[in-house]
């Protein structure tokens, strides 16, 4: 196998960043170039700030849906048709909001002065993932990344965990708003309508967001934590909620299961909201969480089977710094395992699209529909379909058909640019001192400038980082 060798500058731009741009100078001090980005990150870029109000859109959808149900009960057929049209309109609003969110995400990734930090936003959004499988989550997905992930990407893990678990998107996605303490006043008031516990959010917090699967907790711990979380809801959207801000967390004391809880052997006697919060903060600081996060982070940079020594150092950094994320990133940037010259990762469809557009000189997505493009490439943005998020190993992305699609998309992206860009000079800029000889040769012999650009985007050197 021709073993391509990446220069430190190419690694900083592509493995840590989101791909070089033609006007990027190769960084002279790659590590410094990365840490300097901590001061340049824009938390709330214009595209995200301009998104329509997700809570209101979700509320409108719910009202339209309730109206249709009511009409159906009253069998007023003529009005029902109008109502169904209203519901369809409000569903299309949600889709438009989702697509605008995806455009904002892509714009931010294309224009950013801090591509490494943007990459970490994508990493954490996939770690604390919601999946736009239902209308309300479809509305909230963009706001979730903007409000729960971006403000904390250079903060602490615990703050990000709290913001993510208490965001309407997560509370709705993992059914928390419907979970009611079986011994709570709300349940007692309505004994005929059997409402009760839903352990979905509790389990996924423990399994996926913090401690990690097989880290020693039991079914009883999950159920106890689910009881502690009862009452966590959305102000304007929970069952029966008629007013209030649909974008805000609410604690509904009447739905909270009374009494103290024992989780992983520790007693939680706090009243109300503080109980679930205290347990979550304990999980966020647990050694199992440090290892879980360290493993995922190491896998994202050092390869599908990350070195154990790197995992141990990252976990130690996480624990010592109490989950301070810039400290963790600094440990990663200092790690030789993350700078091995052989490419460590096969790009996911999202990474490949963004690095292609950056390489071709795009500063914004413009009229290009990024959501549609990602669907065609097999990785719908914010829709992994399961709370574990997207896989971060090559076997999940390097499939025969997936490869063919990248070739087809590359041709389409390159088609309008053949007059303006010369792949023979562009490719060495995107992969400074790293372009493979075979790739350079095939690019120089392509039948058209656009063909050469397309070939550059799907060359083995460019499919990996």
């Amino acid at each position, binding site marked *: *196998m*021709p073993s391509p060798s990446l220069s430190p500058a190419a690694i900083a731009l592509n493995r840590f960043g989101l791909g070089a741009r033609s006007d990027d100078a190769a960084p002279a001090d790659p590590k410094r170039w990365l840490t300097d980005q901590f001061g340049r990150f824009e938390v709330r870029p214009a595209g995200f700030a301009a998104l329509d109000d997700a809570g209101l859109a979700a509320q409108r959808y719910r009202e339209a849906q309730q109206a249709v149900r009511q009409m159906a009960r009253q069998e007023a057929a003529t009005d029902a048709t109008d109502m169904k049209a209203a519901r369809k309109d409000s569903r299309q609003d949600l889709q438009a909001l989702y697509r605008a969110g995806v455009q904002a995400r892509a714009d931010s990734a294309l224009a950013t002065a801090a591509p490494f930090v943007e990459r970490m936003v994508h990493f954490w959004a996939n770690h604390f993932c919601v999946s736009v*499988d239902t209308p309300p989550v479809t509305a909230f997905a963009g706001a979730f990344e903007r409000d729960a992930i971006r403000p904390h990407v250079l903060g602490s893990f615990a703050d990000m965990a709290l913001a993510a678990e208490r965001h309407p998107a997560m509370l709705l996605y993992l*059914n928390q708003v*419907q*979970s*009611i303490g*079986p011994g709570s006043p709300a349940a007692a008031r309505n004994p005929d309508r*059997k*409402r*009760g*516990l*839903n*352990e*979905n959010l509790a*389990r996924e917090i423990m*399994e996926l967001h913090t401690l990690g*699967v*097989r880290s020693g907790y039991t*079914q009883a711990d999950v159920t106890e934590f689910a009881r502690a979380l009862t009452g966590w809801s959305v102000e304007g959207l929970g069952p029966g909620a008629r007013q209030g801000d649909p974008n805000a967390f609410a604690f509904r004391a009447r739905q909270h299961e009374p009494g103290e809880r024992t989780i992983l052997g520790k007693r939680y006697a706090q009243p109300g909201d503080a109980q679930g919060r205290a347990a979550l903060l304990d999980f966020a600081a647990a050694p199992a969480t440090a290892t879980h996060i360290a493993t995922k982070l190491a896998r994202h940079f050092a390869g599908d089977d990350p070195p154990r020594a790197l995992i141990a150092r990252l976990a130690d950094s996480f624990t010592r710094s109490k989950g301070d994320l810039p400290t963790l990133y600094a440990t990663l940037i200092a790690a030789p395992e993350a700078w091995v010259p052989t490419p460590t990762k*096969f790009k996911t469809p999202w990474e490949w699209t963004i690095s292609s557009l950056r390489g071709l000189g795009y500063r914004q997505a413009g009229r290009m529909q990024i959501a549609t493009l990602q*669907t*065609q490439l*097999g990785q*719908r943005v914010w*829709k992994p*379909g*399961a709370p*574990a998020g997207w896989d971060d190993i*090559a*076997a*999940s*992305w*390097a*499939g*025969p*058909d*997936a*490869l*063919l*699609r990248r*070739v*087809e*998309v*590359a*041709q*389409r992206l390159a088609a309008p640019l053949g007059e303006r860009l010369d792949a023979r000079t562009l490719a060495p800029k995107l992969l400074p001192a790293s372009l493979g000889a*075979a*790739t350079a040769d*095939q690019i120089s012999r*392509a*039948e*058209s400038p656009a*063909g050469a650009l*397309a*070939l550059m985007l*799907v*060359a*083995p050197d460019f*499919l990996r980082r």
Partner: protein
Amino acid sequence: MIARRHLLSAAALGAGALFVSPGIALATAATERRFVFIIQRGAADGLDVLRPTGDPAFAGLRARLIGETPGIKLDAMFSLHPALVEIGKMYARQQALFVHAVASPYRDRSHFDGQNVLETGGAQPYVVRDGWLNRLVAMLPRASDDAIAIAATVPTALRGSVQVASYAPSALPHAADDLMTRVTALYEADPQLHPLWASALETRGLATDVGARQDPASLGTLTAGFLTKPNGPRIAMLETLGWDTHNAQAGRLANQLRNLDAMLAALRDGLGAAWATTTVLVATEFGRTVAVNGTGGTDHGTGSVAMLLGGAVQGGRVVADWPGLAPGRLYDARDLRPTAALDALIAGAAAESLGLDPARVGRTLFAKSGAVTPITGLIRS
């Protein structure tokens, strides 16, 4: 030399995306027998799919989910979910067999670990690296094309030493021949990309005249199209999603099962005469809680139901050593207690479907999950 490829007709990406991930995976083998594995990702509720209406505890536990429609009565104990109309007809023709209270060796409640155990055939998650379906393909006499698969990427059950291609319907325009030639040259020396690329080209050649829609019935028809090509694949895997019914299960599961029913009917109809030599196995990673939760759904559980469908299945029966639903009979005081091993069912069904020795198949597919005694008498030879 690159095979001439043709545009597929209209594609409806995203339609039914909650039910079917855009993927079918297939493998060729020199046999006229066919084996299809349909995985239900997300833990399908076996107690709602095949309802133990004869169990005295059932009505009390599940009245809120069942409502007025107990389903299609199969025998004194079991009724089939009312959405499974076509599968009910298969049962009446003795072409459907159900195994209830069945589970893989996995006993915890994580979807991802549970699916990994189901697909690799290990006793623990992430211990075995390749999938049992890949090891099964390796046991078959090879066709000229080794193996082919169809899905944008390859599911775990089909990953392994036998190279598996993938295919999924696409709405993208095809790339120019010059680009294709140069890409082929660039990937030639790349051990990861070369085999992927070779099978992608080959598979698209096979898919020329098949429709490209992604609704469940069309995917059933598409799968049947591949399975009936003269030298085409004989092993297929279909992934279905959306079985994780934590809330509003009554409506959601009915919709899931209608989709599954439509896909299986289209597969049966598309296979035509080949249905007589086809076995379809439907299985999920684990079941769901016996009790209904506070949100009209069920949570992660243990025992569930598996189905065998096909022209040669010794069907028209439910195989179950019924553990009962009384409180003292439950697993962990909350789940259907497993009394049958899914591994034993898979080994027996795969062996008898493909004319292989059950004991050898059991050893090859499930060496790491302990002593598997394949269930036999499932398929007419």
